[in-house]
């Protein structure tokens, strides 16, 4: 090979390396950007008058007089739409049977769509479930519902080889020649006057409890559950981990037993997280019976086992990084070994130990599999501090899974799911970032 080719290969190699780093950065962006962007819409969105009604009725928040004025204003616009429905009903009752049957189903769909858009008609029965008590609280959702009102979704099966394609048919075409035709352009044009959208910052998303299994309201019970579980895990794992690290670095003598312990540590670090869940179920709940069934305590213990190896490892590294001279200086002044560890080495290693602790805290907060069988429930309100010993809790990580995969209206509440993911990612990344900053400070300090 001549030099030109060698140089070309060399440069391509460099490009390949930089390319893969860039791709990794892109991966992070590709995952984070939609989460951040969509997650923010859980807090900041164009809220409709329905949103304000909900806030007032459920949480007594907002200006009552102003709200009443808005309700009157929007009802005035809505009543015309309702009047059109009434008019059509009258019209339909005068049609012959066959025609009635033809319109019956279509009309029911229109009514349902309008109800989904604006909420139950004033004066009618008040529904049981909160989700049916209100119209669309978010303008972006309202626009989707408007589309559903205006167009009917149908499937095209014409190509037998490919999957059926969806297409949309205007509903107003189906009511050609009746009085209902006027309804569609009316709603389309006046929707903003019916719903009165305003830019809203809904901080309650973080601090409120959920209403009607997350269709409305906030995610505080999940956030609190995550905090309880993560801190609970730290309470067990941190002291144990630091003490074990002290033993490994200061007391352990090289030998078979010590290497066995070290192997155990790395084995524990490699155990799949779902197996921790199984172990937590079999040991803490079924054998030790720390609680009757799932509980925060059992979940914290399981998470503690999972993060223990990380804490031990980082604490070991931090202790080993303490300069030898500190140790010698302290011992030289006549202090005992234990004294030296407690008063000199641990304080010097503390920032490093904390860094590992903070990262582990983030890991405990983000992990799902270990708490599925031991601590997490899908619905529930925030639990008190006294309940941690015997009651399970909702938690961000588990509820993200639950809402996205198992919730009956999963695709309706994407904004809540995104909001939860953003909350979880923010907690975890903030913890990690503080660890990174902490570490940068330490290395600066060590450099002098």
């Amino acid at each position: 090979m001549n030099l030109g080719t060698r140089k070309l290969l060399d440069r391509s190699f460099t490009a390949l390396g930089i390319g893969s780093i860039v791709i990794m950065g892109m991966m992070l962006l590709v995952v984070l950007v939609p989460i951040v962007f969509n997650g923010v819409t859980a807090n900041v969105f164009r809220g409709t008058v329905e949103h304000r009604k909900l806030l007032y009725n459920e949480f007594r928040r907002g200006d009552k007089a102003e709200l009443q004025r808005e309700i009157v204003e929007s009802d005035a616009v809505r009543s015309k739409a309702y009047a059109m429905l009434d008019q059509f009903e009258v019209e339909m009752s005068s049609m012959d049977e066959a025609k009635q049957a033809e319109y019956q189903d279509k009309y029911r769909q229109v009514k349902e769509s309008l109800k989904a858009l604006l909420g139950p008609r004033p004066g009618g029965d008040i529904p049981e479930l909160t989700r049916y008590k209100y119209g669309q609280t978010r303008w972006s959702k309202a626009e989707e519902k408007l589309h559903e009102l205006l167009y009917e979704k149908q499937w095209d099966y014409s190509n037998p080889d490919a999957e059926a394609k969806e297409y949309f048919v205007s509903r107003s075409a189906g009511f050609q020649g009746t009085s209902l035709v006027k309804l569609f352009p009316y709603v389309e044009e006046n929707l903003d006057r019916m719903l009165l959208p305003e830019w809203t910052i809904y901080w309650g998303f973080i601090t409120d409890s959920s209403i009607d299994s997350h269709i409305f309201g906030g995610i505080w019970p999940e956030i609190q559950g995550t905090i309880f579980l993560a801190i609970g895990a730290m309470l067990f794992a941190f002291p144990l981990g630091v003490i074990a690290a002290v033993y490994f670095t200061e007391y352990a003598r090289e030998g078979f037993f010590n290497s066995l312990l070290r192997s155990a540590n790395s084995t524990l670090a490699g155990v799949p997280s779902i197996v921790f869940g199984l172990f937590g179920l079999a040991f803490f709940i079924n054998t030790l019976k720390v609680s009757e069934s799932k509980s925060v305590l059992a979940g914290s213990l399981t998470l503690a086992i999972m993060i223990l190896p990380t804490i031990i490892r980082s604490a070991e590294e931090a202790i080993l990084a303490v300069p030898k001279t500190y140790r010698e200086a302290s011992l030289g002044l006549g202090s005992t070994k234990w004294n030296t560890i407690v008063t000199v080495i641990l304080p010097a290693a503390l920032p490093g130990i904390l860094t590992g602790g903070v990262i582990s805290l983030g890991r405990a907060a983000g992990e799902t599999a270990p708490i599925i069988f031991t601590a997490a429930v899908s619905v529930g309100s925030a639990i008190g501090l006294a309940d941690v010993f015997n009651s399970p809790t909702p938690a961000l990580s588990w509820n993200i899974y639950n809402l996205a995969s198992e919730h009956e209206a999963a695709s309706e509440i994407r904004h809540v799911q995104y909001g939860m993911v953003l909350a979880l990612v923010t907690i975890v990344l903030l913890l990690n970032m503080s660890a990174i900053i902490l570490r940068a400070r330490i290395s600066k300090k060590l450099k002098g």
Partner: protein
Amino acid sequence: MELTAEAIEMKPDTGSTQKSVPDIYLPPERNKVADGGVPHVSAKNFSIYYGEFEAVKKVNADILSKYVTAIIGPSGCGKSTFLRSINRMNDLIPNCHTTGALMFDGEDVYGRFTDEVLLRKKIGMVFQKPNPFPKSIFDNIAYGPRLHGIRDKKTLEGIVEKSLRKAALWDEVSDRLDKNALGLSGGQQQRLCVARTLAVEPEILLLDEPTSALDPKATAKIEDLIQELRGSYTIMIVTHNMQQASRVSDYTMFFYEGILVEHAPTAQLFTKPKDKMTEDYITGRFS
């Protein structure tokens, strides 16, 4: 630096020459080497910086072709930095840059169109610590030639044997060329590194304290090797052992805090140093 302690003993009295320093052997013909010869490497106002710090300050020197030049000086004086800059090994250190000119065969080493790969092929280097690759002895020596396009087995075998013979290692390892080079002793490893460098047929051989990690016996072998290579290659050797410098070199450069204090024929520098600082150093007043 225990070797400098010996250097104190060999402190030459003013006026007297080699007689008072019997433990240094200077071959008589070496004293004749003085002027004449072609400059192979020449530095003009050549400075090396690590970031803001000027590690080597405005060096002006001509290194003569086919002679052995030793570079001495206290640690941190920039002697290694200077040596490593000749085949641009300093490029690997971040924030390292140079000013002034360093010419090799009349070409600018740091010129815009200089290819450091070709340059390093012509200017080989042996490091302080023996650094054989974790491969067989044969593959270690053949590594360089293979890089530069030699694939033929017979040719490679010839090169390996020739290089090992030149490095005086052939007799010791000819029967185990396929064994891992890390199994050799430290001295053998270092000679292997010399052989590895010779295999790419360089014009200049840079030796960066090649014996500092070796025992006296292995050191003697490396020094013998330098003697044998003398005349075929331009050799530059960094050493903190002044006896070694006086034993193996024709010329000596003395660096102090990045400044080239004195550059003279070895015999002259060790017996009649022109500079007070040089005298202080070789007489062991500081190290």
